[in-house]
């Protein structure tokens, strides 16, 4: 199992946090929401296939 999903999510989270700081400092507060949502979408794109894979695996193991 690749451990780098965890570090990818952490990286994206920190980048978005920094971006929000930069945006709020430079006065463009309305863009912080947009960058947060964009980051969330990217993280979901990374995470969802693994979640689907996990649930299929659980279904296979416990024949649910």
């Amino acid at each position, binding site marked *: 199992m690749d451990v780098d999903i*965890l570090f990818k999510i*952490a990286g994206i989270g920190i980048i978005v946090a920094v971006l929000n700081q930069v945006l709020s400092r430079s006065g463009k507060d309305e863009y912080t929401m947009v960058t947060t949502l964009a980051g969330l979408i990217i993280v979901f794109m990374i*995470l969802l296939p693994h979640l689907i894979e996990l649930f299929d695996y659980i279904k296979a193991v416990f024949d*649910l």
Partner: protein
Amino acid sequence: MMKIIGIAVSGTIIYVILKKNCPEYAVLAQIGAVIIVAFIAYPYMCDMLDLINNYTVGTELETEYFGIIIRSLGIAVVAQFSSDICRDNGSSALASQIEFAGKIIMISAAIPVIKGIVELTVQIIDKI
């Protein structure tokens, strides 16, 4: 085992870091850590279940009841970790809902067992 501990600890640290700066990603980091640990730990369960399956084939026990046990175990596992994730991030109402739904599904999966028990007791009472 060490791998699981390492991933869990680093996941917790990342969760705390993200919790302070941008809380939305903390939840996702936690889910990611759960997925990784699950993928490392669950294959051991697979071998155990196959072993138990091989043993029950020999005896005259109905394997149908054993299937129900495994299914309810799976439901319990999934309900447990999803309700804990919800409770960690503040929505305990949702967590209790997930647990309640897990219990209902488990009982509905165990209906054949209850039916078997009732029939058995009826037969015993008839014989007395």
